[in-house]
């Protein structure tokens, strides 16, 4: 926007109850003497619904979306946010003040898109009225001078009565899906006024309305959808209820009753690895979760398979396979051999070869509380410096090492603790790390003594775990329908040409002159060829020799 345009903004507003293919012309500026509150409101509304505002809001929206890709977002990458806070709390605090970790639900982002949609509605509603009138109206009367139109040509046909020529021309126009009106003009001339391509504006309106539809359905969907994550070790069963999830997020209208009570058992989790390509050895090429499900729909338990890109639908919820890893089964015994802890412990993968990290907490049964931080190597290899790592993701040479801590696990304070983290602030390291005692090292079936005669640890076996995402979004289909409508509307509005064609027939002694004029509304690369071909088809309909006279 230039300064000169700014200076006369209040009255120089361009109304946009017009097709988007319309290019604004300078409007006559009328200086309003004084604006009352209603006048200012009207001014503001017109400003908001002007194309220029829409354009600026679009540019702002694009700009405002960018920070969401530069800073981690709580919705997509909560761990990234946590890391930010850990590394530079003051900076993170500042970023958080500007909602830069929640860009897409931030006040400023919402303000932009809500204004944009308001502007869109304000622009589209009058255009709907305008378009309904245009659809009902007859094509505008034939201009006096067709020679001034962008497409123009004259044909002479002989041995055809004038009215027959006009009839044929009208038939051809109708075949080409033009709406046609015939007019008897003074001086014995007959003219046809024709227009086509109303779908261009219809499509444009459908596109914009569909976008509003997408926004509304997404907003409604936000209240009714839920998504939860759950880790299942082979053999474990999960019953769909809020408490059974490891993490759960739901819209405000989701109640405990909204969750269908199906149950899901992970029977087996299979990973297959590439073995015949040296460039991809160890790359997984399939993850398959064999599950059994009991649901409302099925009478008995049914077997099913969940893969990446291939979710399982149960009672309106979809179950997705998102991750996997190993969950070593660990048993801890007291000095007398009594089992005080036995469970599968999911270890979180740290790299492509599934070097995994996990935590074992034994609060009761031993003389002191024991916490262990474990590293699991599916195929253990050792660097020349003596550090262990995993060299292959499958279980070829599985080794579990455990650093042992004794002291206070911090579980009694009533503060929820992550099962994947060990708070070592109240504990002493007694094996591994800096303790001077070697970390415990276990292979499947082997056993190791805890330091200080506390007891023993055994690695029983190593089942796999899979992490599932269970999601329900009742608005998925409506959003899809709206999106498809938007795409169809968009294509119509961009590619259907809107054209007006006029044909005037004049009797010249023994011949009839057909004069063509064509006008495009909006961008139309095919205007000239289309008028040419229309004239050619009319000429061939008349099957008479025509004498072309291109002007």
């Amino acid at each position, binding site marked *: 926007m230039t300064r000169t345009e700014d200076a006369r903004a209040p009255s120089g507003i361009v109304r946009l109850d017009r097709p988007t293919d319309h290019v604004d012309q300078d409007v006559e500026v009328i200086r309003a003497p004084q604006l009352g509150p209603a006048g200012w409101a009207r001014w503001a509304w017109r400003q908001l619904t002007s194309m220029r505002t829409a354009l600026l809001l679009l540019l702002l929206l694009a700009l405002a979306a960018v920070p969401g890709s530069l800073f981690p977002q709580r919705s997509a990458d909560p761990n990234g946010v946590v890391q930010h806070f850990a590394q530079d709390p003051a900076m993170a605090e500042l970023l958080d003040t500007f909602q830069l970790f929640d860009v897409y639900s931030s006040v400023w982002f919402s303000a932009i898109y809500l204004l944009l949609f308001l502007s869109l509605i304000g622009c589209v509603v009058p255009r709907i009225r305008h378009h309904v009138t245009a659809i009902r109206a007859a094509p505008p009367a034939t201009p006096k001078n067709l020679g001034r139109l962008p497409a123009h040509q004259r044909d002479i046909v002989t041995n055809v009565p004038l009215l027959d020529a006009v009839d044929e021309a009208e038939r051809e126009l109708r075949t080409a899906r033009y709406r046609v009106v015939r007019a008897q003009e003074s001086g014995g001339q007959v003219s046809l006024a024709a227009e086509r391509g109303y779908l261009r504006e219809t499509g444009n309106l459908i596109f914009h309305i569909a976008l509003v539809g997408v926004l509304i359905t997404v907003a409604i969907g936000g209240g009714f959808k839920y998504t939860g994550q759950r880790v299942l070790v082979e053999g474990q069963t999960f019953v769909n209820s809020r408490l059974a999830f490891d993490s759960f997020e739901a819209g405000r209208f989701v109640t405990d009753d909204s969750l269908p009570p199906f149950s899901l058992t992970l029977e087996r989790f299979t990973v297959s690895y590439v073995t015949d390509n040296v460039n991809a050895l160890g790359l997984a090429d399939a993850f398959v979760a064999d599950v059994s499900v009991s649901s409302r729909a099925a009478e008995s338990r049914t077997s099913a398979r969940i893969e990446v*890109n291939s979710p399982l639908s149960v009672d309106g919820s979809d179950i997705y396979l998102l991750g996997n890893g190993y969950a070593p089964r660990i048993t801890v015994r007291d000095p007398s051999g009594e089992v005080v802890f036995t469970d599968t412990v999911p270890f979180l993968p740290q790299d492509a070869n599934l070097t995994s990290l996990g935590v074992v907490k034994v609060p009761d049964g031993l003389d002191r509380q024991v916490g262990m931080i474990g590293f699991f190597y599916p195929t253990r290899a050792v660097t020349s410096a003596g550090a262990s790592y995993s060299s292959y993701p499958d279980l070829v040479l599985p080794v579990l090492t455990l650093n042992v801590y004794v002291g206070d696990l911090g579980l009694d304070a009533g503060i929820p603790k992550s099962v994947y983290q060990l708070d070592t602030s109240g504990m002493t390291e007694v094996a591994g790390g800096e303790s001077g005692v070697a970390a415990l090292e276990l292979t499947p079936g082997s056993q190791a003594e805890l330091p200080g005669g506390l007891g023993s640890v055994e690695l029983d076996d190593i089942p796999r775990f899979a992490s599932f995402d269970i999601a329900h979004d009742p608005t998925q289909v409506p959003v899809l329908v709206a999106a498809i409508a938007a795409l169809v509307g968009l294509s119509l509005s961009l590619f259907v040409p809107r054209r007006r064609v006029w044909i005037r027939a004049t009797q010249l002694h023994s011949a009839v002159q057909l004069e063509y004029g064509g006008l495009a509304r909006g961008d139309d*690369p095919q205007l000239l060829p289309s008028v040419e071909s229309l004239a050619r088809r009319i000429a061939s309909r008349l099957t008479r020799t025509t004498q072309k006279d291109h002007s």
Partner: protein
Amino acid sequence: MNLPLDPISLVLVYSAIAVYVGAFVGYVFAFAVQTTNPIRRLVNAGGTPAAHAGGRGPQTETERPGRAARVGYALTMLAWVLHLAAVVVRGVAAERVPWANMFEFSITGTALIIAVFLVVSRRTRVVVLGPVVVGVVVILLGLATVAFYVPVIPLPPALQSAWLVIHVLVALLATSFFGIAAVLSATQLVKHRHENRPAPAGRPARLLDAVPGTEYLDRLAYRLTIVGFALWTFTLMAGAIWAGRAWGRYWGWDVKEVWTFVIWVVYAAYIHAKATRGWHGNRAAWLSLVGFGAVLFNFGIVNVFFTGLHSYSGL
């Protein structure tokens, strides 16, 4: 892995590059020759002749393309056949569609750019497109073989979906349309700076004289962009559907999703700008460049340097 098809594909890419360089030379020569052609200078420097306004380039109507331009076109065609063969062989070697990592995106994407360019050049000859498009493709292909090359490996499970075929292919095609349009918009901006100055008599010929008027460039860029925009809209939606299948949500503001959205909005702004007083012309051309800048960022920077769910660069 019986036949070493992958190296054959690479040899075909190198061959294509060599022939493209030949085509580039031809086009540069054609550009220079046309600049010194007095008829052309008259037509192109003189603003907007009637034929312009009607929507066709002046050059299609004034005369046939010169010999150098025809050589450039023929060599581009030949190089493109080699290029296409490289893409197909890569696909056969991988036993899947050849667009699943940066190297493959690059070779397939550039093949599509050339395809769009060949079609556009048949319909209208904007002499500046030849050297620029072919030159850029040579650079991109060189970059792809040097920086992005990875041997064939099977698809990770996340990419094993029919949507890979359609979503990525359409995204690359949209990129091709946006790319050619961006070249036209850039030319338009450069041309604009010189268009309104009358050429003093006896002034030596300038390269820009061979370029059609800004209005024509503007319109051609618009036509290509709207095709790109429709394709990009489809890309965005197909991507959302795929995300819904793979990750349990159709939109989650993943880095790639953010940039796809930004690109979509910028081009939406471009289309609106074309119908807004004061934004038509140069400002719209700038938006077209910003849009394509975002496309390049999304492809080159986001794929390689950002981490997100779309980390499939294979690097």
